[in-house]
């Protein structure tokens, strides 16, 4: 009846054909890959390669009348600060605005870069949601944004007094993030 003779050794049946172990071996291979993945989690956000480097030279003209423009030189003025990329067309930025105001009240300097925005709407946005910015530069073609290695709005960078990017925060700043950011600005001194 059987193709080959079978022997029983204790509880185990012999011969143990190679193919009987195939599922186990395959599974172990997959397991190894999964273990590796757990040990090296994927990064889903696009982290800027600029973190730790000096801000590239740029000039962002004044975005609204009455607010000074932003240049790379302004960022290396000896004071650590936040650079916030935002826009009036960006809905999460509305949610972020009160948190930025909170940061300003804690004495954090914030410089804004308005990405692909227009003055009239920007002015409306600032009067609706508050204006925590020392300066606001206009970045109509996302050039400054790309120079920072930023992929979306809102994003916020911690810059130290020498104009070096210390940290990148992707997405809106939420109330939970405030202590970390305040600490990062302090550390950047």
């Amino acid at each position, binding site marked *: *009846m*059987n*193709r080959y003779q*079978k022997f*029983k050794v204790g*509880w*185990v*049946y*012999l*011969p*143990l*054909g190679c193919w*009987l*172990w195939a*599922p*186990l071996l395959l*599974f*172990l291979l*997959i*397991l190894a*890959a*999964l*273990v*590796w*993945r*757990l040990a*090296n*989690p*994927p990064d*889903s956000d696009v982290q800027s390669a600029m973190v730790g480097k000096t801000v590239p030279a740029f000039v962002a003209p004044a975005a609204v009348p009455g607010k000074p423009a932003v240049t790379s030189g302004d960022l290396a003025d000896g004071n650590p600060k936040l650079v916030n990329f935002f826009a009036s*067309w960006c*809905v*999460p930025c509305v*949610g972020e605005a009160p948190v930025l105001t909170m940061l300003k009240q804690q004495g954090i300097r914030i410089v804004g870069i308005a990405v692909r925005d*227009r003055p009239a709407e920007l002015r409306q946005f600032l009067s609706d949601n508050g204006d925590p910015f020392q300066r606001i530069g206009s970045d109509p073609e996302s050039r400054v944004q790309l120079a920072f290695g930023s992929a979306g709005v809102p994003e916020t960078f911690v810059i130290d007094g020498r104009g070096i990017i210390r940290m990148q925060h992707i997405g*809106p700043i939420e109330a939970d993030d405030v202590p970390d950011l305040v600490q990062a600005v302090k550390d950047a001194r």
Partner: protein
Amino acid sequence: MIAEAGLAALWLAAALAILQLFLAFGPSPVRAVAAGPVRSIAIVEGLLTVFAMAMLMWVFARTDLSVLLVAENSHSAKPWLYKVAGAWGNHEGSMLLWVTILGLAGAALAIFSRRLDAKTLTAALGAQGALALGFFAFLLLSSNPFARLSPPAFEGRGLNPLLQDPGLVLHPPTLYVGYVGLSVAFSLAVGALITGRVDSSLAKAMRPWVLGAWIMLTLGITAGSYWAYYELGWGGWWFWDPVENASLMPWLAATALLHSINVLAARDSLRAWTVMLAMVAFSMSMVGTFLVRSGVLTSVHAFAVDPKRGTFLLALLAIYVGAAFVLFALRSGKLSEGPKFELVSREAALVGNNLLLTVILGIVFIGTLYPLFIEALTGAKLSVGAPYFNAVAGPLALLLALLVCVGPLLNWKAGSGEKLKRLAVPALVGATVLVIAIFALPGDGILSRIALGIAGMLAIAAFLPLVGRKLRRTPLSTWGMVVAHFGIAVALTGMAASTMLTKEVLTAARPGEQVQVGPWLVEFESVTPTAGSNWTALEAELRASRGDGVTVLRPQARYYTSPPTETTESAIKTVFSGQLYTVLGKPAEDGRWQLRLWWKPLVTLIWLGGALIALGGALALVGRAWRGWRRAVV
């Protein structure tokens, strides 16, 4: 108190699982008397898990913000239905649902499988207890759904708006019943390997479980596909997303198992193979759960990632699947081969089905994990998309569909020659239809054309097993097979037709402008703000007509306040011949709006086909249960 009661029930159930394990696999004097107690314990354990789940749903229904999980995932201003369904719209709750279904499956196994020999049943219940114990430990030690928050939150943080949809109410529970229902097949296979009794009575005991789980998986995948189709606003019905694949892989394994189990039941053949498939099917469920819950693969199902939980789940996976495969290697040598069969026979056709399904499963598996393997070996990052899956799995799936035309007509063992001769004429006609379909139809895509041809053939061939039978006396399970196979033809038609004939328009339009898409003339009337209980939205008014009356569609771009999220709510008009699918996109700077419009002919057939396949399964299940019940009574 409610939360504490739920937690206590979970601990009790875990303790019972330990006892169950000890009784089933303990020293032989214990095992000798274990049969009765193990069954009672399995039933009580099932009831306790149901109780715990009910408690969680209760705290969600009341929005009890002193429970951490509720505070993090619910909101008092949410519609009632979504509050309750929110109980499983998060990691902890969905794992509790998983465990609840596992417990229920164990209880049902104890209640309904009395005809199986007592030793195998006891060992199977022991295996089920071992599975339950691991997942109880996972819940209690790393994902406690009942943890308190002190002081209570002022307001909940809300449920991900994408999940605030009737889909959430149905999609996870059906999929989970499918996933976890396969655990019974797994436990039975383990039990039978331990006792060495792999025969047709095992197949008959296993079949209703596989069938039931498979029906739910089919429904869950179909519903999930439709949900993604209208909710994500991308207009596609299958994205080969890792989490979609994670649900497809157990389905493929279960489909293969469903067919091989019939060979084991009827002919006592394919013993080792069926046992292995039963193990693979549930292993795929666990791999799927791990992939989804650990967040190791990038996917639209971006659940919260916690490395500790991932490690825990992976350890469980390693223990269960590893142990099962070791058991298989050591014990399946005992299983003799069943009776031989001819190349042209029902058995051979089912073996063909199994081989094709297994290869497709392998293709999906490799495609899903390939980026991970490559990154582990070389560090390069890549993604595997639809072109690979369609090109590699597509032709094999079509070959399988072709086999479905013939397989059910063959006899068991041998002597199918006569039947095949009678088949010659219809097959010739079918082949002609196929060729005409391939060359005559408009649109592009050779695969879709062939698919359409095969679907047409299968739509007819599916009914051939009924020819020459007395329809009234045909068993319900045969009707089930016919309906399910016809469902494949229907779904295939939908897939091929919508792929070939879809018209897509991406445009920026001002209110007042008109856009033509396929046979539809769509007039963009206006965009107006609107609001619901926890969202605000911009809503477009589109007037669509095909020369006969006007249909108004109102796609929305929604903004949810808690948590802040934007979603697009597509508006879909279903007519007999297909669907008009509209999405409102972003405003452009000059007062124009992005509009995405699709005319998708016959696309609804995809989900109708899926439903028919599940219905066929249900007919077979009812038919078999009915026959079993009558036999027990008479």
